[in-house]
């Protein structure tokens, strides 16, 4: 509870700001949400507010705060560089809303941000929460740029105001399978079988389902697919099933804490595939995974959303984050960082803080300078980042490095992993 209080202090929306914001939209609020954008039209406010819904307390607070850091950093960078030029150098301002990881709280979060006058909202880290939050944002016609949330459904509902940068499940899982087959071919190794251990939520379930579908296209087969509950205290039985499968590749999806437990159990029971490959794994792409578990994580790979280490912009981002928070920017924070630039770019082109105009500008996004390992950021008709691409990382010498595709690689991959 102390934490929530502290968060509230940091939130940057004081009572006075709130009253100011409410007053500005007072008329609109009285008429209803439809008339609302008109009030702000034309006026160049000193601050442009962007909402950010994240689990800042509760079990996912760890990841939620990482994402917050990424977004805060981007906002500060943009403001320092002169704000939004086409709007007279207007500064951006982040409004936080704590979802506590719960979908119902994200509803009131969106409503609050809407009333506070946010021109756009970002969020929410969890698919289940994002599905609900985007729906509410659609109702209030607030552009919603999804930072992290993988479920396909989010952009499959014909929403006009939802945009997503992150590769969705239908991009992430097949790309990971393709990359596995690519690296196997390059190394001259035969890879026929995959054993997949995953969390039993929509996250792991959908990814593993897609892998099962895609694998045969690349001459592979998923011989074991073992779901586990992240809330169960013991995963030994599940890991024994993976060991019994004796597959060439062991794939894993999950969040951080359960990812760590599954991995330790696999090492303990001497599961020895040619490679451990995560798919959107909350642990394998997190530097803390390496820091806490040490040597045993060497050569672990993960197919996940990543920054492009070879982009000069990303280098700047890495350095800045390192200086501010004393660690390498985690990929989740990258995907909270880039949306701020996407929104800023749209604002720049929209020359307006009208949500309708901003929404149309977002839909026409064609951002070539960015930090992601992909071509230009372009949204398709559903609002999904069309060119979104994952990258394979590998733990090498205690550092998580991008190793595939080759054009984005910062280190040479090791496959199969030495025993």
């Amino acid at each position: 509870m102390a934490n929530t209080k502290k968060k509230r202090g940091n939130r940057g929306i004081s009572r006075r700001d709130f009253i100011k914001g409410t007053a500005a939209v007072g008329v609109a609020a009285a008429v209803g949400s439809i008339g609302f954008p008109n009030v702000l039209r034309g006026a160049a406010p000193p601050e442009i507010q962007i909402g950010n819904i994240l689990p800042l307390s509760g079990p996912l607070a760890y990841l939620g705060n990482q994402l917050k850091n990424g977004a805060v950093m981007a906002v500060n960078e943009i403001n320092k560089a002169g704000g939004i030029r086409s709007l007279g150098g207007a500064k951006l301002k982040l409004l936080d809303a704590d979802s506590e990881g719960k979908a119902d709280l994200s509803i009131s979060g969106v409503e609050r941000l809407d009333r506070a006058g946010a021109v756009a909202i970002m969020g929410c880290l969890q698919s289940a929460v994002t599905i609900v939050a985007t729906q509410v944002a659609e109702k209030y016609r607030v552009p919603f740029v999804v930072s992290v949330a993988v479920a396909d459904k989010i952009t499959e509902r014909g929403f006009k105001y939802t945009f997503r940068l992150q590769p969705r499940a239908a991009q992430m899982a097949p790309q990971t399978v393709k990359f596995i087959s690519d690296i196997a071919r390059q190394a001259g190794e035969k890879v026929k079988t995959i054993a997949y251990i995953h969390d039993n939520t929509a996250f792991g379930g959908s990814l593993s389902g897609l892998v099962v579908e895609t694998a045969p296209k690349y001459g592979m087969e998923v011989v074991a697919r073992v779901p586990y509950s992240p809330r169960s205290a013991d995963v030994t039985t599940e890991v024994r099933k993976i060991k019994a499968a004796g597959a060439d590749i062991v794939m894993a999806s999950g969040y951080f804490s359960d990812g760590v437990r599954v991995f330790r159990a696999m090492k303990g029971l001497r599961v020895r595939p040619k490679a451990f490959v995560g798919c959107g794994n909350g642990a394998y792409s997190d530097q803390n995974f390496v820091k806490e578990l040490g040597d045993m994580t060497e050569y672990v790979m993960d197919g996940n959303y990543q920054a492009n280490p070879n982009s000069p912009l990303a280098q700047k981002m890495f350095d800045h984050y390192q200086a501010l928070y004393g660690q390498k920017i985690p990929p989740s924070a990258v995907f909270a960082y880039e949306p701020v630039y996407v929104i800023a770019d749209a604002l720049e082109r929209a020359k307006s803080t009208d949500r309708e105009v901003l929404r149309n500008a977002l839909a026409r996004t064609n951002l070539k300078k960015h930090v992601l390992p992909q071509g230009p950021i372009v949204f398709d008709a559903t609002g999904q980042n069309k060119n979104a691409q994952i990258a394979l990382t590998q733990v090498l010498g205690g550092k998580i490095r991008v190793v595939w595709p080759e054009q984005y690689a910062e280190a040479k991959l090791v496959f199969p992993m030495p025993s």
Partner: protein
Amino acid sequence: MSFTYILQTLLDGLLMGGIYGLVAIGLTLIFGVMKVINFAHGALMMLGMYATYWAFALLHIDPYVSIVITIPILFLVGVCFQKFLINPIIDAPEHNQLLLTLGVSLFLENIVVFLWSPDYRVVKTPYEFVYFYIGDVSISLLRLLAFCLAMLVAAVVYLVLTKTDLGKAIRASSEEPSGALLVGINVRRIYWTTFGIGAACAGVSGTAVAPFFPVYPTVGGIFVITAFMVVVLGGMGSVIGAFIGGLIVGMADSVGGLFFPGAMKNLLSFVIFILILLFRPTGLFGGSK
């Protein structure tokens, strides 16, 4: 499915069951004496894990040796918890006590987030991957140690309850508080001692799992839900029942994992739970009071 595979599964479950048993003992003890359902038990266990983690990270004390730190700290926390928070509302309706312990649990979890960040921490021991083999059946040293620790503490608690004057006083206060008061037992003192012991049990369970379980603020919830079931299954207030119940649930979960995927693996233990309650509504070792 071979015989060794099933044996292995049962053994995995048994070792984990010892932990469930120990968590449940603390819970059942507190319930038995004060009739307070302690929702903060998971948070107390989490504090035990953090105590072990910090003793290990800062003082380089072996996690299993750190019980010499965990037990006194958690005992003290338990005593303060009882004296300053539970005692004032000991006669209040049950749901109010429930809310209080739930509030304390939220408070503890969030104060830990505030103090030590929500980061996941890992206690790494040099003997982490030591395994013993009996034929094809493997036993992890960490799990075995955790189990032995749980057994040991459970045995000590049991002996204290049955063989010592303190134990007699605790049992007397549990069964007949006003009678105990009449024969000169300081029931208030017994209350805070019991709460201290219960909290220390939670702390030791935290210590026991810390070497193979990541440490983070909300970790207690994972164990405490199972512990509630174990307490009811073993008979509310029964220490032996809690331990045996823990073993049963541990093994049932493990075997369930063989046949059912994901969260469904708890199906078997819930079926056993319902069956036991059908035929023995007061739980395995519950009295017929």
